[in-house]
């Protein structure tokens, strides 16, 4: 049973007032760990299709107090961001732009609500912010990460260079469909007025099916050459796992970030991390990055509740 959610605000280290919603369970169910759900990025404390609202309601039913809040410059919080491109903003989040805001949220909960143990939860940008914070703050006892990125976003990166073989296949099906369909006349107009991405079209059409093994290696080499891996990720991950903190990574099977996690982190570092007692990975079959289908977000929440019950 949940007491009515309360709007709250607290200052960050630069004096910006950050807004959030604090969910509290009834006194008889109150657990000592507080879950902080960290903003994924532009979509703030609500997250795509209100995923964070659904998560908060489920977590509080289990007895966990939950704070969802907006980082500075986002949602209802104070502050302004200067980035022109969304990719540059995401890149700044991936290198820890909001770690201090997260620490301020914990400080505020500690001072105002006498809470001292935290589980950091979040999707994408919220997940990487949680990991970078967990690696440096001992008050964090657990990490609940959805679709965590191991790469760095930037407007300088040509993303089509990094399409996975599966994504190239999908592009090819789409182009062939348009080639054969008169209803796709707008695509033809774009093609003949030099507005199409010819390089990508030819790359996807020329790719053999099934994709050759070496394509994956080639993709990996390109990534290495362009060095878009997040250099902070391996250290933060190693530090958090070795400290014994509980970690659950949930990935969406059809999400490029899952492929990048496997190829650029697990394979290239140490596969045995999967066997750590305190580190669990769960993959939602067929799901996309934001777990948009109802069965996918239900599966995310069910798995998360199971993990919370087992570990806390």
């Amino acid at each position, binding site marked *: 049973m949940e007491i*009515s959610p309360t709007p709250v605000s607290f200052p960050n280290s630069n004096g910006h007032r950050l807004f959030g919603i604090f969910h509290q369970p009834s006194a008889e169910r109150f657990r000592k760990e507080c879950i902080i759900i960290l903003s994924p990025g532009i*979509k703030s*404390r609500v997250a795509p299709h209100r995923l964070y*609202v659904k998560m908060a309601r489920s977590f509080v039913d289990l007895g966990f107090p939950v704070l969802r809040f907006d980082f500075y410059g986002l949602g209802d919080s104070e502050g302004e*961001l200067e980035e*022109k491109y*969304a990719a*540059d903003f995401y890149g700044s989040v991936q290198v820890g732009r909001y770690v201090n805001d997260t620490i301020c949220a914990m400080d505020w909960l500690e001072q105002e609500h006498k809470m001292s143990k935290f589980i950091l939860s979040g999707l994408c940008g919220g997940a990487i912010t949680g990991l970078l914070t967990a690696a440096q703050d001992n008050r964090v006892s657990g990490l609940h990460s959805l679709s965590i990125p191991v790469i760095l976003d930037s407007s300088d990166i040509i993303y089509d260079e990094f399409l996975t073989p599966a994504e190239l296949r999908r592009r090819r099906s789409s182009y062939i469909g348009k080639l054969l369909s008169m209803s796709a006349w707008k695509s033809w107009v774009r093609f003949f007025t030099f507005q199409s991405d010819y390089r990508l079209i030819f790359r996807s059409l020329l790719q053999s099916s099934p994709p050759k093994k070496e394509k994956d290696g080639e993709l990996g080499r390109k990534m290495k050459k362009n060095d878009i891996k997040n250099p902070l990720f391996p250290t933060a991950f190693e530090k958090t796992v070795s400290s014994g903190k509980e970690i659950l990574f949930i990935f969406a099977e059809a999400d490029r970030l899952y492929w990048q996690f496997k190829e650029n982190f697990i394979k290239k570092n140490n596969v045995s991390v999967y066997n750590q007692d305190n580190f669990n990975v769960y993959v939602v079959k067929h799901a996309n990055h934001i777990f948009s289908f109802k069965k996918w977000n239900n599966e995310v929440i069910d798995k998360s509740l199971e993990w919370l019950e087992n570990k806390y």
Partner: protein
Amino acid sequence: MLETPFFFPNKAYKLFGVLHEPLQNNRNFGFVFIHPFAEEKLWAHRILVNFARFLARDGFTILRFDFMGHGDSEGEFQDSSVETRLSDIEAALLTLKTRATRVEKYGLLGLRFGATMAALAADKLNDIDTLILWEPVIEGDKYMQQILRSNLATQNAVYKEIRHTREQLIEILKEGKTINFDGYQLAFPFYKQISEINLLSDSRTFQGRTLIIQIEKNPKKPSQKHTTLKENYNKADQCMATAEPFWKETKYFCSQANDLYNNTYDWLLNHGN
């Protein structure tokens, strides 16, 4: 400027709102901001926040709120409808009147489907002085077709095939089930209600001043639909503003829309507010 987040009641549920109040030079003019539909609300959130702050610093009072089943408000999206939205707008207006006692004139400002709802609400409510429509969804049926297209695109991306065609999706809705678009569950009654909305079909009964803004990346000339909508009002103005389509994903980080803000603000000042 003072910002107060709070929950306020409407019938059996609570809605989340933020009241922006000026600390000085109070113009005694209050607006209720009405957000767009589903995921468009999240993309556009910061644009509305920053315009509310801009106006509040200049003496206006603004109440932003989340519809039932949206944002931080209670309820589920699939239970919402045109009626719940009209009722929510009325509750928000009442809340603005109760909380901001110095305000004497009231306006509605809506974006996309929020503008459509603002237009419908203004026809019904007696005490609205000013109506501002930012890129309104004028024809509901076309908007619903876009929503169905979004479902087809997700099917294609996930299953590499279309498992349910557009016609089959409508049949699923008619059977009383919901369909998913961008993570939201849409039911038939709401689908039908939105499809039947056409702001051009009747003369609007709202008699106050209206501003219709067409938002485009490279505006060239006013669209015929916006012009016809303007002609459906007794006292309306129409203009164009240059901005990215900030209610959907673009490569730009959109938190301000200066041309849109300036056009709106100048129009408000020119009309004696």
